[in-house]
Structure formats: C-alpha cells, structure tokens
C-alpha cells in the first residue's frame, strides 16, 4: 500500500515514535490536537468569509433598493409636474415601503458588520492561540523526546550495571564454589583418614572385617607361639608326641624322665 492512507500514517508515525508503550504517543495526540485547531481556525475563517459575503450581498440589495427609491421619488416628482397627484401619491407610498425595507436591511447590515468584526477578532485570537499551542506543542514534544531518551539512557545504564553486577556475582559464585570444593576435599580426606567416611575405592576395610582380621591374625600368632615353644623345649617334644602311643607300656612302668640307657 502506498496510497494516501499509508503515507499519512507513515508521516504521523514518523512524528510519533511509539517505543514507550502501546498507548497512542502523546506527541501524536499533540500533533492531532494542533491539526484540529488548524481545522477550527479554518472553519472560523470560513465563517468570517461567509459573513463578509452576506454583508456584501446586503450592500448590493441596499444599493438596489436605494436606486428604486430614488427612481420612485423621481417618478413622484414627474407625476406632480404633470398634475397627476394620485400617481405621485402612489409612487411616494411605494417609496415609503421601500424605505422601510432599506431601514431593515441597514439594521441587518450593521448586525452583520458587528458579527464580522467579532469573528475577525476571534479568528485573530484563535490564530494567536494556535501559534502559541504550536510553540508549546513543540516544546512538550522536545521535552518528551528528551525524557524518552533520558529513560532509554537510564535503562541502558541500569542494564549495563545489572550486567556488571551479574558478572561480579558470577565470579563471586565461582570463587565460593572453588573454596567450597577445596574445603570439602580437605574434609573428605580428614574423614577418610579418621575412618568416619567409607572409602569408595574399596581399599579401606570396614570395622567388622578389621576385627575379624585382628582376631584371626591373633589366632595365628598364638598358634605360631605354641609351635615355637615346642621347638625350644627340645626335639623330643614333637617325637614324643609323635611316638607317645608306641611307648605307652614303658611309661606306665618307668618314669618318663628316667634314661632308657644306664652307663653305670
């Protein structure tokens, strides 16, 4: 679409940036008000022109009537000169009727003239008001545009500062997390070392296994100790134990510590 509608719309839109909200831009409204005032001014001017036209028309009618009145007066004079008083009377009575119309029209003319002057004054005042509004409108528009720009700048700044804040916060978070992880690692090491925490690697043993190991380890130690004691007690200990069954009859008749061979 490139017709009047579109182009007028574009012109209005170009003059009214609707960035701030969905409502009609106040500048567009101001421009529209100004446009309406111009229209009103034009109507007043048309009114002035209409009144002036009527006044001129009345003046023409007045001239015409006054012409007729003069003519009737002349006719009356001629009728009298010719001795026709009756005709002169008729002419003068018609002239009197015309004079009444003239008087009425003159009153109307004066009224119209007054109206015209008032309207002309009103048009001048309105023109001054429209001019003043135009100046004010431009000031308001400029202020609005500046305020809008200021808002955008403010938004941009706060946006930037928010971003900066985010970056700072992210760094802070990262630092906190690192410190937390380090602390946790340290704590885990300590807990693992103290046995309060299971080692998921499987290298560490639980307490039950540790006790079983300790007990079985202790049993082995005891067995080993007995074996070593037996060895120290002499080589007989083990053979005695081994041969005990074969020399059972002898032990009953002789004490065990008696030597079997007497060299005396």
């Amino acid at each position: 679409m490139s017709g009047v509608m579109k182009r007028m719309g574009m012109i209005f839109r170009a003059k009214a940036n609707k960035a701030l909200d969905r409502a009609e831009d106040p500048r567009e409204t101001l421009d529209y008000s100004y446009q309406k005032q111009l229209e009103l001014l034009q109507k007043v001017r048309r009114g002035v022109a209409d009144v002036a036209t009527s006044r001129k028309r009345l003046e023409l009618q007045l001239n015409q009537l006054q012409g007729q009145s003069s003519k009737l007066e002349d006719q009356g004079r001629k009728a009298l000169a010719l001795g026709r008083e009756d005709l002169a009377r008729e002419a003068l009575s018609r002239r009197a009727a015309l004079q009444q119309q003239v008087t009425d029209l003159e009153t109307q003319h004066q009224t119209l003239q007054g109206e015209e002057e008032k309207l002309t004054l009103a048009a001048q005042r309105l023109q001054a008001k429209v001019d003043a509004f135009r100046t004010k409108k431009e000031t308001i528009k400029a202020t609005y545009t500046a305020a809008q720009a200021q808002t955008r700048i403010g938004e941009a700044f706060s946006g930037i500062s928010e971003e900066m804040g985010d970056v700072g916060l992210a760094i802070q978070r990262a630092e906190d997390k690192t410190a937390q992880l380090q602390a946790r690692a340290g704590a885990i090491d300590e807990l693992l070392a103290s046995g309060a925490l299971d080692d998921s690697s499987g290298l560490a043993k639980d307490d039950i296994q540790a006790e079983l190991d300790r007990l079985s380890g202790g049993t082995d130690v005891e067995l080993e100790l007995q074996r070593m004691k037996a060895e120290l007690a002499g080589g007989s200990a083990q053979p005695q134990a081994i041969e005990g069954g074969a020399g059972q009859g002898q032990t009953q008749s002789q004490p065990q510590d008696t030597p079997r061979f007497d060299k005396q």
Partner: protein
Amino acid sequence: MIVRIMGEGQVKLDDGHLTELNKLDDELLREVESGDEQGFRRTLGSLLEAVRRLGTPLPDDSLEPSQLILPSPDASLEEVRDMLSDDGLIPG
C-alpha cells in the same frame, strides 16, 4: 487494523477489506498528485464512506495507535498535498 479519519475518530477494519480500499486509496493518491480536484473530492468521499461502512467505530476514549490515517471529509486537495509533503501541516 485501526484507521483514523481525521476530525471523526478511529475505526477498526478487517484486513480483508484492504484490497478494496487500496484501489480507492491509490486512485486518491494519483488524483492528489495530478491535482484533479473533482476526482479527489469524489474518491475521498467514496473511500471515507467505504471505511465507515466496513469498519467498526472505536469509542472516543480508546487510545489505539492508528496504522492508517485518512484526511477529514472536508479536507481540500491542497491541504492533503501539504500534509503529504515533507513538512506537512504538522510541523516537527
């Protein structure tokens, strides 16, 4: 689509009517550019009548941005031409 008739108010139009209105609108623009006063008056009347007929008037207290704007019914060809010129009747 919201259309403003200057001096009258806004009407809401279904987009489907745009093709019909576009023909009149383009014709109006040609008449403005060629200075055809009679054609302009006739086409503007037809266009405004079509917009009024096809559209739904918006209440006076609604503030909707207008996508399209039409001259007032009594706007003269010169006025519309001025409005369409760079500076237009509306300064700024």
